[in-house]
């Protein structure tokens, strides 16, 4: 227990705004989204991209899906989409093949892949823009033809004409394939011997053999696809954090709709609170201390290891005489077999017992896991104003950080006696809407620490996910922790579970008895001078545009 005057560390005044560097560790967007070894495109196609792909276009639906699948693999899997059978690919995709090759040449392609690897949601957004560009280019080439020819050099005219012809051929081949009735024809467009497919293939090949093709194609791709993408990327870059937060709050959600519904109310909030954190290194330091390393249960397991030799495992070939089977020794009796024995010995082909043993092995990956966090947030009326903003930004930062590290978070809002509301964000349950609502809402009500601690205790004891969680207590301290049994119970459970409590007192210099249970108490006395002026309006527009034509 700590005496009131002797608090762990006191931040008398958090430093004011300071320059924000993108590379600072806390906000660095590391590659948080790791793909499984077997990358599965279907998931992306059927959930996030479904709404986009189902909107009718000139390009028929099965082809839209196939093209999207190629691109999803290319962009998200971290590997290139390897074309195993060029002929088949050309038969199937026609003009998309040279387009793909040309797109890969652009610098923006690598940027796009890097972005998608670090931020899935942003990657999906860009992918939609990209697909939109491709579908328009192929499906509505006639409409944009004039624009393209206008901007190009005269000597490419002929190649462009060839491109147009190829696009037309591709479209009609796709249409024909799509409208054909028999299912085996419809679903296997590359069935050999279909004259249409072969024509498409030879046309594509011929087009690509033309020496000016590269130049013309690059110019078209640059204008229609690469430069719009670049523009879009630069807009996105400013808002990666927010996107990341949203994607963590709503994993796997249909993105276009959710954004449309959410941005008006929530984007401003997220941006406001996130930018506050950026400006304060002291707050970040507090966050650094949160969460701790713990050994995951059952990560060590019994494993057969060749280093331990306490048990006969099976029979194998080797030259080790000490573990040799008796049947080999018999061979030494017979002069003929004796030679065979020596030959086998030199070749390591004696039948021998293989010795192995069980060892406690621990897997390097997943050995250490950082613990979950419970944030208790005071939502009383006295918090209104800058303490409220600060509290929200701390909660936002904590949540963001924890979700990024794959840890579980629970935010418990408390007010007067017996009033509390839990926002759970675990792998099983993501109450994203509620969380955003919390940021949106204004605080009001009373304060009762006892209620807060009791609900925190309940979560810790009753829910397996949160056993041994760290507790972050955010309040202005206008209450008193009075129930002695509760304090005693807390201190017991802290010892038993090895948990810690951090208290963040905003706008007060009295911790209201919380220091009796807290390991670390931070006090922010002065909460003036917090202001956020940045507007998210620009970004909201930019995202709205490509999704709905």
């Amino acid at each position, binding site marked *: 227990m700590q005496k009131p005057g002797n608090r762990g560390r006191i931040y008398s005044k958090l430093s004011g705004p300071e320059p924000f560097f993108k590379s600072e560790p806390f906000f660095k967007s590391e590659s948080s989204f790791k793909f499984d070894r077997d990358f*599965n495109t279907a998931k992306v196609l059927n959930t996030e991209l*479904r709404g986009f792909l189902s909107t009718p276009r000139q390009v*028929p639906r099965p082809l839209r899906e196939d093209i999207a699948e190629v691109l999803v693999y290319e962009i998200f899997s971290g590997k290139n989409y390897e074309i195993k059978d060029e002929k088949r690919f050309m038969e199937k995709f026609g003009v998309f093949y040279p387009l793909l090759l040309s797109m890969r040449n652009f610098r923006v392609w690598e940027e796009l892949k890097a972005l998608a690897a670090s931020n899935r949601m942003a990657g999906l957004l860009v992918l939609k823009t990209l697909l939109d560009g491709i579908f328009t280019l192929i499906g509505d080439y006639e409409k944009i033809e004039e624009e393209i020819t206008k901007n190009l050099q005269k000597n490419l005219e002929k190649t462009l004409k060839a491109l147009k012809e190829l696009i037309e051929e591709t479209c009609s081949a796709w249409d024909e394939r799509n409208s054909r009735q028999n299912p*085996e024809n419809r679903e296997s467009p590359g069935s050999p011997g279909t004259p249409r497919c072969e024509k498409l293939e030879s046309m594509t090949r011929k087009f690509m053999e033309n020496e000016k093709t590269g130049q013309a194609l690059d110019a078209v791709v640059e204008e229609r696809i690469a430069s719009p993408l670049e523009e879009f990327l630069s807009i996105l870059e400013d808002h990666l954090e927010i996107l990341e937060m949203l994607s963590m709050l709503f994993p796997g959600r249909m993105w276009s709709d959710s954004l*449309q519904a959410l941005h*008006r109310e929530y984007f401003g909030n997220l941006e406001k609170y996130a930018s506050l954190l950026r400006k304060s290194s002291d707050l970040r330091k507090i966050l650094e201390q949160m969460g701790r390393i713990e050994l995951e249960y059952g990560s060590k397991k019994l494993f057969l290891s060749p280093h331990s030799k306490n048990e006969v495992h099976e*029979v*194998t070939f080797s030259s080790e005489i000490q573990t040799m089977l008796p049947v080999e020794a018999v061979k030494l009796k017979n002069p003929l077999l004796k030679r065979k024995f020596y030959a086998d010995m030199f070749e390591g082909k004696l039948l021998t017992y*293989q010795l192995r043993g069980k060892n406690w092995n621990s897997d390097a990956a997943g050995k250490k896991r950082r613990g979950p966090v419970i944030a208790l947030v005071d939502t009383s009326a006295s918090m209104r104003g800058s303490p409220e903003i600060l509290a929200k930004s701390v909660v936002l930062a904590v949540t963001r950080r924890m979700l990024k590290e794959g840890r579980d978070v629970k935010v418990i809002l408390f007010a007067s006696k017996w009033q509390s509301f839990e926002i759970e964000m675990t792998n099983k349950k993501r109450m994203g809407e509620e969380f955003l609502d919390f940021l949106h809402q204004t605080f*009001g009500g009373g304060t009762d620490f006892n209620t807060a601690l009791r609900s925190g205790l309940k979560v810790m004891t009753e829910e397996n996910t949160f056993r041994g969680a760290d507790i972050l207590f955010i309040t202005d301290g206008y209450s008193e922790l009075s129930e002695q049994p509760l304090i005693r119970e807390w201190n017991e459970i802290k010892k038993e579970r090895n948990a810690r409590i951090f208290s963040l007192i905003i706008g007060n210099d009295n911790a209201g008895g919380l220091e009796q249970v807290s390991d670390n108490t931070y006090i922010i006395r002065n909460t003036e001078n917090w202001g956020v002026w940045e507007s998210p309006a620009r970004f909201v527009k930019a995202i709205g545009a490509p999704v709905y034509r």
Partner: protein
Amino acid sequence: MKVSNLKNTILDIKQEFSAYFKERDAEINGSLLALLSGEHVLLLGPPGTAKTLLANKICETIVGGNFFHYLLTRFSTPEEIFGPLSLKALERDEFSRKIDGYLPTAHIALLDEIFKANSSILNSLLTILNERKYHNGKVVLDVPLFSVFGASNELPEEDESLEALYDRFLFRYSVDYIQHDENLEDLIFENLEDFSPLTKLAVGDIREIRKKSRYLPVDPEIRTIIKGLRRELKNSSIFISDRRWKKIVNVLRVASAANGHQSVSRMTVVLLQHMLWDLPEQKETIRKLILDRVVSGGTDTGKLKQDVLDLKSAIYGCLKQELPDLVSCTKCYEEEKKTASTARHSRFTGMKSQKNLTFSSTLDFLNHYLEFPKHTYGVGLDYNNLNSSLNFDSVVELLRRKYAFEFKLSLDYGEKKLYEKEYENLEERLDYFRRQVQAEERALEETLEENIWVSAQDSREILIKYRSKNTDIYEIANHLKEIRAVLEKPKVFDIELETMGEAA
């Protein structure tokens, strides 16, 4: 009529076996088919579930073949499986084994505890199983092997070489203890005599049926079904090796030939449920998938339905515009306030209160208007505005004046063409599906009965599924009808805004 003879023989054997082996119909079925098609069978299950006995008895039905039975342990040496080293040959400076009576000369083999195979025998075993060759010294022998029956209590641990062994067993059955008391009673009280199968299969017959099956044509639906299955399994991270697919089609051919069919019909595909799983947990999922595909003739009903729904929502999505300013319904707001003031005990329960009262897109707004044509609205976030509650028409006019915002109520010509194209495509797919399902409905029961490889349980399930497919068709057709109606209407929303335009 050789084939019908074979068919009857198989039926006889099946009958004989199922009288003795309780609750093992699928395993008997699969074992026989495996014998005919020359594939290997794996029986997986706890000790004492008649795995070995079943395999043993199946082997006994074959006349004119060698049989090799061995219990593998982790200490089994090559001598025990492939025969002892020939001393005579060694004297002549040759290395060879005396393989007579061992696995390399067997037609059928039963290897108990197959996953105990250790590295000293595994290589030769794999070659025998897959290539049917045995390297005896410098001679490469063709092995006469038809099938190997493997029995095991457990799946191989993560060990690459054993996984290769596992992959070579095409048929996989997991057996369990007898479920019904009556059957157990029969087993332990009634079957006093040792079972020995009376009906026999000749090795020659097997060879002949295999030859006959080789060029059997495969129905086009099977291609669709298999392609669809492969895709779907891949999506759920179950990977079937190319070798297995090749073998599977071979088995289907043999099954149909033995049935006396002229081509491979899609009902035979139900057999795939015993060939595709890697872990027993996947069995049920895969079985459902397969039955579903078999019934629908390859069409993925779920996807078709989803596609139709997608198109429907896309039509509305196309009309969705963002309102230049928030519009909120004053009427609903007041009602909300009334109920809320009494019902709201805690701030926290009221958290989601204002959700549906404000509209940010035209779609929500128009739908609300169609539902409650008499409500009045306020424009903008400023709640002081609420007093000046406007009716729908004035909201439209206000938006037009202030932001030059026009509501989009119908698809324009180009869009309409696109949607119609997509619609026609879906309609054709549905028609195909309908024909596929309904064409066979009448003859279905007979077809199933006549097919000796489809178990009674499977056929019942298929029949039930057929009926549910009809409901699916009905449902999808209804959705399509709705889309048709929307596309035929001049406007998607029947709302008159023209007069307002003139006024402005």
